[in-house]
């Protein structure tokens, strides 16, 4: 937790006191929230250009003026990595954009990523004074975060966070996704000797193979990882812990602590007839081919299915990513098939909105029952069950149930199944001493992220089973605090 004294001391810095006086609170709250521009849906749905265009400096400063620099900044409580939000926003207001970026990096290893993919509307922005007390749109914290991080990167003046004197203690990180990178960044700052092991040939985990270029350009992930490398973090790709190197090998190599951030990589299928027809695939397969293997590029040797009538099953962010990718790969009709209604959709509102703008069709309250193929074994149509909503279930969402006898056939030549993922079983099945739940997640102490095996800590989807980038990063930070305290106490 950020201490109250620290926040107070920062807030009473003379520049902030003066800045607060420049505009009266009653005038600040009259300002309207900025709208980030996006590329014309007709244009962007046929290319891979990033959809959101970011804020201009003028827009950012104007938006930063709305922030009241509250005595009690509740927004920070909504941030899993506890960014000092008022400090970075006030730096933007006074035009110190590089200082704003530095503030982000005090606690976040990946600010340009978070500024793009965090569900801020459910986190920091939800806790903003404007929402809590004024019933007005929150300060656009996410947009401002992105602005500061982008400004720094484009200025080529990228600050490397300060590093404590090396303590010579070796720690290993399994997986280079958001949990692992966040952990690695914090441990490097604390002076540890950090090595990150990645199973794939590129770094970034889900940021690289999962989230498409039009939402999170690869180059942004790459540059944020380069900062970690400059902080002394070592990276080893093509290395699968539990296969290439065992748990015991790591201990023999002198690693005193191991952080497991191996994610939830195992895709779910629905186990309905016809699911193994050609043209039916997991969202992981589809997105990995396009994002990691660059399959949409004619020069890439990796092929990808390019359907004309593409159905994506599911209503999460990954489903939106897949269906919008299908459009960009030339689909004439790209649709979401979701068993509940739009209200229950787990995808971010912004993603659903963007998808609609681009012409994605939504078949909500529909659930596939089976697929049929042609003589070559390729999917050609699917039978959908129409659904209705009943009472709320354990997730608090209204439970969908089939409307007896109400089914409809739909022609499709590609189906992408995006109905959830499970933790990757590699670490749970090869590491000794871990406690594993029936869902395959690793049990940890939720304050320190330490597992039942004392030197092993874990965080992100391997613990949560399928959550967000920022929650994974929050876990990485917590684990870094827990592990460093334990190791330095020895």
């Amino acid at each position, binding site marked *: 937790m950020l201490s109250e004294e620290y926040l107070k001391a920062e807030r009473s810095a003379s520049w902030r006191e003066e800045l607060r006086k420049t505009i009266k609170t009653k005038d600040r709250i009259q300002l309207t929230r900025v709208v980030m521009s996006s590329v014309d849906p007709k244009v962007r749905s046929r290319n891979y250009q990033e959809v959101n265009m970011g804020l201009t400096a003028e827009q950012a400063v104007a938006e930063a003026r709305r922030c009241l620099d509250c005595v009690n900044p509740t927004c920070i409580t909504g941030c899993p990595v506890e960014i000092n939000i008022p400090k970075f926003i006030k730096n933007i207001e006074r035009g110190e954009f590089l200082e704003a970026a530095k503030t982000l990096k005090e606690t976040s290893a990946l600010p340009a990523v978070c500024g793009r993919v965090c569900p801020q509307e459910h986190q920091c922005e939800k806790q903003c004074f404007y929402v809590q007390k004024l019933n007005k749109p929150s300060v656009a914290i996410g947009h401002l975060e992105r602005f500061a991080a982008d400004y720094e990167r484009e200025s080529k003046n990228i600050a490397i966070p300060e590093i404590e004197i090396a303590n010579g203690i070796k720690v290993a990180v399994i997986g280079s996704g958001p949990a692992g990178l966040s952990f690695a960044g914090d441990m490097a700052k604390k002076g540890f000797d950090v090595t990150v092991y990645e199973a794939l040939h590129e770094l970034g985990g889900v940021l690289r193979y999962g989230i498409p270029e039009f939402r999170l350009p690869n180059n942004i992930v790459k540059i944020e990882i380069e900062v970690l490398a400059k902080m002394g973090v070592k990276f080893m790709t*093509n290395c699968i812990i539990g296969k290439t190197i065992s748990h015991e090998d790591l201990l023999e190599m002198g690693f005193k602590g191991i952080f497991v951030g191996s994610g939830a990589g195992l895709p779910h299928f629905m*186990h309905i007839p016809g699911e193994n027809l050609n043209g039916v695939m997991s969202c992981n397969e589809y997105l990995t081919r396009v994002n990691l293997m660059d399959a949409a590029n004619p020069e890439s040797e990796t092929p990808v299915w390019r359907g004309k009538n593409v159905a994506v099953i599911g209503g999460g962010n990954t489903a939106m990513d897949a269906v919008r990718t299908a459009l960009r790969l030339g689909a004439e009709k790209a649709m979401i098939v979701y068993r509940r209604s739009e209200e229950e959709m787990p995808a971010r509102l912004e993603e659903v909105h963007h998808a609609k703008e681009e012409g994605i069709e939504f078949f909500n309250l529909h659930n596939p029952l089976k697929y049929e193929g042609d003589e070559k074994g390729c999917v050609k149509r699917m039978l959908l069950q129409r659904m209705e909503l009943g009472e709320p279930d354990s997730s608090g969402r209204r439970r969908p149930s089939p409307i007896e006898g109400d089914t409809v056939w739909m022609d499709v030549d590609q189906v992408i199944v995006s109905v959830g993922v499970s933790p990757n079983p590699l670490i749970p099945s090869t590491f000794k001493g871990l406690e594993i739940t029936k869902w395959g997640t690793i049990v940890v102490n939720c304050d320190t992220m330490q597992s039942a095996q004392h030197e092993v800590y874990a965080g992100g989807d391997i613990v949560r089973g399928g959550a967000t980038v920022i929650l994974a990063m929050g876990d990485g930070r917590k684990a870094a605090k827990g592990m460093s305290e334990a190791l330095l106490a020895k």
Partner: protein
Amino acid sequence: MNKIVGKEYLSEKIVKLEVEAPLIAKSRRAGHFVIVRIGEKGERIPYTIASSDIEKGTITLVIQLVGKSSQKICELQVGDYITDLVGPLGNATHIEKYGTVVCAGGGVGIAPMLPIIEAMSKAGNKVIAVLAARTKELVILEDQVREFANEVIVTTDDGSYGEKGLITDGVEKIIKREKVDLCVTIGPAVMMKFVALLTEKYKVPTMASLNTIMVDGTGMCGACRVTVAGETKFVCVDGPEFDAHKVDFDEMMIRLKAYK
């Protein structure tokens, strides 16, 4: 980056590569595979490890030239590097003393069979190898197989070497002659299908090692899924070996054509 330290043509279109990979050489067991990628635009292709040398820190891959990606690998020379190599992947072959084990390898499937023959033999089994190919020059690694197998039967489709006939002819001859406790088969899907049909008839337990389309090879994509005993399995993490009598080979053959 992994350096190629040895290259040998086993036939006109089958290349044996010895590649530096000390960590994999140490941790791999019979039945494991690796994923290989050549060049920044290359695709990820699975290959079973044929053998390894822990002291030299190398593994051996046997690659048949069938398409663009395998051609790129086959064109590499000693001293060149493989861009990406990751493994060992999959589950190792379950090795124990069964009694008499028939190892039926077809074509380039003889290469991944080699470490299984060796391990089965070292576990005290009587190993009878059936090596099958279209024609004489495609029968590979016969000498290495003879080192560990108690008996080797070679069949060729055209009769140019060994006995004229299919792999199933060789396997059936043994089953009719003596009690077989286990059959292991590796080769083209259609070949494994017919071996499985034959051994099922004679109630000989049979394992097939499947080679399907994969992307990551670690359970992430599901491109490799097959139906075994009515359930969907991932070859990369649940296999690559399965009870051959329960594998839906017809579905597997269709899925292998997904990108053709």
